[in-house]
C-alpha cells in the first residue's frame, strides 16, 4: 500500500520549532522583579527572628526574579524547542509513544481526585480506594494474575519490587538462592534490578532466531536459580514461542518466572502472562495504557502476582470489604512499602480511564493494530533497512543499518538523526545490544497508514542521500533547534547548574 492507494488524509509530521538559543531563566532575572501573588491571610506578621533561633535562619534562596509575562514567554519558547507525541510521530522503540487521550487530563484535574491528601483516613477517601481496587481487578484480568500492588512508581521500581517478592518467597520456604537468569537481549534495568535485589545475574544467550536458546537455558539452570526475568515479546520485538518450555524448565528447578511488562501492549487481550506460566508481572502503565510520558516520567509500574506470592505483596493495599466499603490492608508476610504513599495515583487513574474506554474488545484492537503497523513498516522498508530477524514481529521491529554502513559508511545514528530533519522522532538506536547498528521502530497503533507511508518515504530519501551525499548524513540534523550536541564535552567539562556555567 502506498500513500496514493490510501486516498485522503495527507500526513504531516514536520513541526515548526524554535531555532534561537533561549536564555536561561537566571539570565532573564532582574533583582527585585516578582511574579507571585498569595492569598490575603491576616495572620500577624511576627518577625522570623522571634519564631526561630538565629542558628537556624538561612539566607534567601537566589531563585530567578522574573515577571509572570517573562516566565510565560520563556517556558513557551522552550516548548517550541521540544518534540512530542502531540506534534508528530514518535516511533521510539520500546517506549510506546502513542497518542495520550485528552479526556484523561480532565479526569485527573478533578479536585475530587487531585485535591486529596494522601494521609487522609480511608473513611474520607473511599473514592480513591474504590478506584485502586477496580484498577487492580482490571490489571489482574489482563495479566492472568490474582492480586497486585500499585505502589511502584515506574517499571524499574516494579522490577525491583518483583525481585524482592521472589526473594521473600524463597526465604519463606527456607530456600537460599543466588542467581537470576536474564536473556542477553534484556533492558538494562533488568540486570541493575537483579543486583539491587541481592542476586547475581546469569546471562542467557539468544539463538539465531532472536529467541532464548533453550540449550543455553538448560545449561544455566540449577538449584541456586531464584528465577528468570523475561520480556515477551522480547526486546527484539519477537514472541518467545517456547515460553511454555521455558516455564517448565525454570519451575522444574524451583525457580519463578518474572514477566517484564514493557511490551505488554503487543499482547493485551491476545495472550496473558499468567497463561504463559509467569508468577510475577510488572506493567508499565504509561506504555500499554497510554498515560503521557511527561518528558521522562511520571510512569507507573504496578506488579501483579500469582496466588503463591500474594501474602508477600507490598502494603498497605486497598481492599473491598464485605459491607461494600473499602479499607487498607497489609498482607501477612508483606515485603513492606515501596513508595512514600500509595503510588503514582493520578497516573493510575489515567490508566484505569483508558482501560474503561477501551474495554475487552478495544484493548485487543490496540494490540492488533500495533502489531499490524509494525509489520507493515518492517516489510515496507525491508529493501533499505532489513529486519534483524527475518520473521513476523510483534509491536515493534528491529531493523539494521549494517548494509548502509558497509556500502556508504552511514551508521544507524546518522539515519536516526536524519529522520529528525524529516519531521519524525528517531527510533531507538543501538538497542538491543545483540543487533549490529540496531534501529528499533515502534510505530504504535495510533499512527495512521498515511503517517507510516510518510515515514517510509522519509527513510527512502535518507537511503538515497546515503548513496549520493553520505557526508550530509554525518552532519544531520540541520533543521532542528540545535544540531548534534557535543556529548563528550558535556561529560568532560561538567556544567550541570547555572552556578557552574561561566556566562558572558
Amino acid at each position: 500500500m502506498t500513500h496514493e492507494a490510501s486516498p485522503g488524509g495527507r500526513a504531516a509530521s514536520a513541526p515548526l520549532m524554535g531555532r534561537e538559543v533561549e536564555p536561561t531563566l537566571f539570565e532573564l532575572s532582574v533583582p527585585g522583579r516578582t511574579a507571585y501573588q498569595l492569598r490575603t491571610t491576616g495572620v500577624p506578621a511576627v518577625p522570623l527572628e522571634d519564631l526561630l533561633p538565629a542558628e537556624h535562619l538561612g539566607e534567601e534562596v537566589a531563585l530567578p526574579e522574573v515577571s509572570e509575562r517573562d516566565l510565560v514567554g520563556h517556558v513557551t519558547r522552550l516548548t517550541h524547542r521540544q518534540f512530542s507525541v502531540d506534534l508528530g510521530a514518535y516511533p521510539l522503540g520500546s517506549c510506546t509513544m502513542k497518542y495520550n487521550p485528552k479526556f484523561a487530563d480532565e479526569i485527573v484535574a478533578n479536585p475530587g481526585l487531585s485535591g486529596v491528601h494522601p494521609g487522609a483516613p480511608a473513611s474520607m477517601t473511599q473514592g480513591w480506594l474504590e478506584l485502586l481496587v477496580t484498577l487492580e481487578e482490571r490489571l489482574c484480568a489482563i495479566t492472568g494474575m490474582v492480586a497486585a500492588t500499585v505502589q511502584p512508581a515506574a517499571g524499574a521500581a516494579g522490577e525491583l519490587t518483583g525481585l524482592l517478592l521472589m526473594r521473600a518467597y524463597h526465604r519463606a520456604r527456607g530456600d537460599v538462592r543466588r542467581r537470576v537468569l536474564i536473556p542477553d537481549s534484556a533492558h538494562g534495568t533488568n540486570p541493575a534490578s537483579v543486583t539491587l535485589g541481592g542476586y547475581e545475574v546469569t546471562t542467557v544467550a539468544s539463538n539465531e532466531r532472536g529467541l532464548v536458546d533453550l540449550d543455553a537455558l538448560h545449561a544455566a539452570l540449577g538449584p541456586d536459580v531464584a528465577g528468570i526475568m523475561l520480556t515477551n515479546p522480547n526486546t527484539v520485538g519477537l514472541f518467545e514461542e517456547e515460553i511454555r518450555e521455558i516455564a517448565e524448565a525454570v519451575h522444574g528447578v524451583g525457580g519463578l518466572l518474572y514477566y517484564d511488562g514493557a511490551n505488554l501492549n503487543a499482547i493485551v487481550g491476545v495472550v496473558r502472562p499468567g497463561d504463559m506460566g509467569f508468577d510475577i508481572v510488572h506493567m508499565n502503565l504509561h506504555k500499554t495504557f497510554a498515560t503521557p510520558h511527561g518528558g521522562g516520567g511520571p510512569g507507573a509500574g504496578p506488579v501483579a502476582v500469582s496466588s503463591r506470592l500474594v501474602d508477600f505483596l507490598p502494603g498497605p493495599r486497598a481492599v473491598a470489604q464485605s459491607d461494600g466499603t473499602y479499607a487498607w490492608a497489609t498482607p501477612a508476610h508483606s515485603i513492606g512499602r515501596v513508595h512514600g504513599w500509595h503510588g503514582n495515583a493520578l497516573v493510575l487513574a489515567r490508566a484505569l480511564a483508558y482501560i474503561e474506554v477501551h474495554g475487552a474488545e478495544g484493548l485487543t484492537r490496540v494490540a492488533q493494530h500495533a502489531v499490524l503497523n509494525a509489520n507493515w513498516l518492517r516489510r515496507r522498508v525491508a529493501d533499505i533497512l532489513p529486519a534483524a530477524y527475518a520473521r513476523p514481529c510483534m509491536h515493534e521491529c528491529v531493523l539494521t543499518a549494517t548494509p548502509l554502513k558497509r556500502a556508504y559508511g552511514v551508521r544507524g545514528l546518522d539515519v536516526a538523526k536524519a529522520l529528525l530533519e524529516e519531521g519524525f522522532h528517531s527510533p531507538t538506536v543501538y538497542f538491543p545490544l545483540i543487533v549490529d547498528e540496531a534501529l528499533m521502530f515502534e510505530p504504535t497503533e495510533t499512527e495512521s497508514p498515511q503517517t507510516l507511508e510518510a515515514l517510509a518515504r522519509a527513510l527512502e530519501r535518507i537511503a538515497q542521500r546515503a548513496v549520493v551525499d553520505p557526508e550530509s548524513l554525518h552532519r544531520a540534523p540541520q533543521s532542528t533547534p540545535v544540531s548534534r550536541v557535543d556529548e563528550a564535552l558535556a561529560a568532560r567539562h561538567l556544567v550541570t547548574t547555572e552556578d557552574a556555567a561561566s556566562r558572558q
Partner: protein
Amino acid sequence: MADYIPHTDVEVAAMLDFLGLESLEDLFAHIPAALRLSGGLDVGEGRSEPDVTAQFAHYGAANRATTTTLTCFAGAGAYDHEVPAVVRALASRSEFVTAYTPYQPEVAQGVLQALFEYQSMVSRLSGLPIANASLYDGAAALVESLNLASAATRRGRVVISAGVHPHWRAVARTFAQGTGHEIVEVPLDNGVTAWSRVDATDAAAVVVAYPNVLGVVEDVGVARDLARAHGALLVVAGDPVSAGVLRSAGSWGADVFVGEGQALGTALSFGGPYLGLFACTVDQVRRLPGRIVGESVDAEGRRAFVTTLRAREQDIRRERATSNVCTNQTLMAVTAAVQMGWLGRAGLREVATRGVRGAHYLHDALVRLDGVSAVSDQPFAREFALRLARPAAGVVEAMAERGFLAGVALDSLTGPDESVATHPEDVLVVAVTERRTRDELDAYVAALGEEVAS
C-alpha cells in the same frame, strides 16, 4: 466501543494484503494456540469518554477529604500550597506532557533546558553544587542516598533518625532486603534525635531530617559531627519550602540532600506523582543516581543541553549499575522549576515565612486549650505535633464533620511504634501553609477546643 485507532476497514484490509495475511488474528499465528486467550478479557465492555468521565466523577464525589471540601491542616510530607493558574497552564503544555526522556537532544532542548534550570534551583535550595533531574519521590531519594553512601564508603550500615518520615524509613527497610544494608534507627526524645544512644561505628551514612516528622528543627551539627567522627556521609532529608527560611543542607555540611518536592507546584494528588529531590557534593557526582543534564554546545558552537555522565546509568552499566532508575518524574521537575520561577527569591521566602508564622500562631493558641499539649518544646518551622487527651484518629474524623482536615494522626504513619513519640495514637501532626487565613486558624482553634473538651 471506543478507541484511538485511525485505521479504516479498507486500510486494514490493504495492509493485511500487503503482508499476505487475511485477518488481524493471523498476525498472532506464531503464538501457540494453546496459550492464546479465548473469550476475551474479563474487563467489561468499552464505554465512551463521557460515560467513563461520569464513573470518575463518582470516585471524586466519594472522597470526602479534598482541598475544596475541607480546610487542610494535614502535612507530613504532602502540603496544600498555592499553585497558580500560570504554573498549571505552563506545566500542562503538551510539548512537555507528551514527550519522553530526551534521548535525541536536537529535538528535546525544551525539556533539557527546563531540567537544567530545575537542577540549578535545587542546587541553590540545598546549598550543594550537584543536583539530579529528579527521582520518584522523597522516599526513593532517601533509598538512593543510602545506596550512594554505601558505594562511597564501601560500608553496609546506615544510621537514620526516627525523625525521618516513617514511610520513607519503611521504604528504606524494604529495599535493604535486597542490598543487605543494616539500618539502625535512632529514636526521638522530646522531638529531637537521641544520637547519644547510637553507635555510628562503620556507618556509611548518618541521616537526619530537617525539619523532622514532628516539624522540629534539630541541630544538624550534632548529626554532622557524628558522621564526621566515623567517616560516614551526612544525609539531610529536607523540605524545599522550609528551605526558604532555614539554613541550607550544604551550609550544615551535608554530603547529600534528599527531599520531597511535591510542595513545589504539584497538587496533593493522593500521594503521587510527586518528585524526589536529590543533591550532593562534587565528590559524589559519579555515583549520582538517575539522570543529570549538562550544558554543552552543538556543531555550530551554539549553547545546547544534553543528558550527561550517562556511563553511570543502568542501560550502560547493567548489573554493575548502582541504581536501576530509568523513567523518573521529569514532568514534576519541570513543574517545580516553573513554580520556583514564579515564586522567585522573594516569593519562596514569603511562602516559607507565612508557614512558620501561621504554624506558631496556631500552635500557641492550641496548647492553651485543655486536653492539648505540645509533644516537644523544641523550635519548629511550619509543622508541629500535639498530644491530645483522646486518640488523634478519632479527632481527625470528628474535625472533618466541622470542615477541617485537622492533620495526620501519628500512628497512621508509625503504627504502635514509639520511636517518634510515646503513645503515638494520641499525637496529631499539624501543618500550616501560606494558604491558611487567620479566620481559618481561629476557627480551627475553636473547633478543636470543642472536640477535645467534649
